[in-house]
């Protein structure tokens, strides 16, 4: 058998079992057994989805229109609107601005950075295996540990201050993380510093499946690394890039750094994700003072704004033709 026939045979073999025609009664025990099996397999996950996804989201919409006693109100939306226009404190206005910064960093720096890193590791740069493990470390080490380490280095009295002193600089007495002008920048730097690992691994996995014959043929034609990455590898791993971009856009409103660990939202560092956490957690903790109504109203407004954007992005990305290999 030639290779093409082999491939076709494998394809047929791996496709799902074709459905049997006819009514349930005439299908006999086999079909009934299959249906019982499917029901047993799917019952609990589907029930879980109905309760913890569908019901939660329906209830969330209802909460947006409810006051604390369960009566109908528009006040949650009015409160959202007021907070949206605030420019200081732990407010939605500040949160939106910061969230957009984290999102831009994710799309413009983290994804392309991870792609470039993955490319050089794929091209077997010297010590590539060691680099791959080290670069992936921030993705597996707890944020609590990474933040504690970062803080102790950049806070006053740490190595960063000693380094700044070598060049004649000095830190403000309160430190860079306790200053409204620099706190968000310092957290963004942390996010960039630790944010390549997971994406790098996914891009690396996709690149490993690229047929090397294609690269060799391109090389014979005099193709350099830049063209190789942009014109050959990028189109071949497009489905992975597309999925990553869709996930990044899906998480647009959740774009954030570890705000709780750094500043607890002080110094103008709050993000939408953290603002929601804070409102649900309550100022006293343990959810006792949770303001669910305004959280749901805010979420509903942001959902209505972002869903069309995401659908548009997804539609646009899927329009790009994907080469088969």
């Amino acid at each position: 058998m030639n290779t093409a026939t082999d491939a076709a045979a494998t394809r047929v073999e791996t496709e799902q079992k074709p459905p049997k025609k006819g009514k349930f009664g005439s299908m006999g025990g086999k079909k009934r057994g299959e249906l019982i099996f499917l029901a047993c397999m799917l019952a609990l996950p589907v029930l879980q989805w109905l309760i913890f996804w569908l019901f939660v989201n329906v209830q969330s919409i209802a909460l947006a229109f409810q006051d604390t006693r369960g009566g109908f109100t528009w006040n949650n939306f009015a409160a959202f609107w007021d907070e949206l226009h605030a420019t200081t404190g732990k407010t939605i206005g500040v949160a939106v601005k910061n969230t957009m910064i984290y999102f831009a960093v994710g799309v413009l720096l983290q994804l392309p950075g991870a792609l470039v890193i993955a490319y050089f590791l794929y091209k077997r740069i010297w010590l590539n295996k060691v680099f791959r493990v080290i670069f992936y470390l921030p993705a597996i080490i707890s944020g609590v540990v990474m933040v504690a380490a970062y803080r102790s280095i950049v806070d006053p009295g740490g190595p960063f201050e000693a380094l700044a002193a070598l060049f004649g600089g000095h830190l403000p007495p309160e430190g860079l993380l306790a200053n409204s002008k620099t706190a968000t920048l310092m957290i963004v730097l942390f996010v960039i510093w630790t944010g390549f690992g997971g994406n790098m691994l996914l891009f690396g996995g996709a690149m490993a499946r690229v047929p090397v014959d294609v690269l060799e043929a391109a090389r014979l034609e005099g193709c350099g690394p830049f063209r190789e990455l942009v014109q050959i590898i990028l189109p071949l791993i497009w489905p992975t890039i597309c999925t990553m971009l869709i996930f990044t856009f899906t998480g647009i409103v959740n774009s954030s750094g570890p705000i709780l660990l750094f500043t607890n939202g002080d110094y103008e560092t709050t993000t939408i994700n953290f603002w929601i956490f804070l409102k649900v957690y309550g100022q006293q903790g343990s959810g006792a003072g949770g303001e669910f109504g305004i959280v749901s109203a805010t979420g509903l407004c942001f959902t209505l704004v972002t869903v069309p954007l995401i659908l548009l992005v997804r539609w646009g990305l899927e329009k790009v033709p994907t080469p088969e290999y």
Partner: protein
Amino acid sequence: MGVLKKKKTENFSSEASILRKRSPREKVLFGFVFAIFAIYAFSLIFPFLYMFLNSLKDPYEYLLESSHLNFPEKALFSNYGKAFTEMELETSTGSVVGFPLMFLNSIWYSALCTASGVFASALTSYCVAKYRFKLRGVFYGIAIFSMTIPIIGNTGSFFKLVYQLGLYNNPLYAIVTTFGGFGFNFLVLYGFFRSLPWSYAEATFIDGGSHATVFFRVMLPQAWPALLTLCIMAFIGAWNDYMTMILYMPDYPTLASGLYVIESSLKRGDGGSYPIYYAALLIACVPIIAIFAGFSDVIMSNFTVGGLKE
């Protein structure tokens, strides 16, 4: 067998040599990139060296130092022992939770989340990938819809439900809320199950096996590499998760959430010492680094994701 192995090795080495071919200009570029990679790698390793160095110091020695970059006057490895005995916090009920109990909480919480989440995804992805039934398209649609359409701000509603169901501060939370079969794990396992040939199942049916036998005895063992990868990733994710524990299970602090609370009290100056805290942080990393060291090849080779189109 030997020939096949030799052929495979030859293929691999020819692949590697193609990927390693460089023109003189490329060698300069790769040298430059290597330097950047080396600096970045050092920056990622440095915090751990820094914490290790400081974890061996006497608390007063640490306080009196300026840059904390000096070697300890005397290496106090006893700080690692003290981390187990002195690192503790008080929960809302007034009970004191020590470092060993936080460690134990991390283990059971991560294990339950991992088992529940991956198993549920295996159930749904297998059915959708291998059977044709009326709701199959709906289930696939739900999986993609749930992942790609962001529903924002449902945390309040979720918290309310968790409270109403009695899952707040309840270990069952780890199983019930993670038993969703339509997340990222679904996407990975769906692709994997689709690539498995159905002929194995047919052979099992001929031998008198049931659908359950096919799933548990034939398909699940074959999906082992993908399942193992997802289990490792889920375990690491749960081990490092601090926000869920703070929000939904505050009386069961894990290492991640507990050490956050302890650091908050250190910052407030409520007592405790940074060298012992650094020792505790490094101990908390050990299980994850051990898992990663043992399974890094599995993670690196199996962690892939394709397109979202069916």
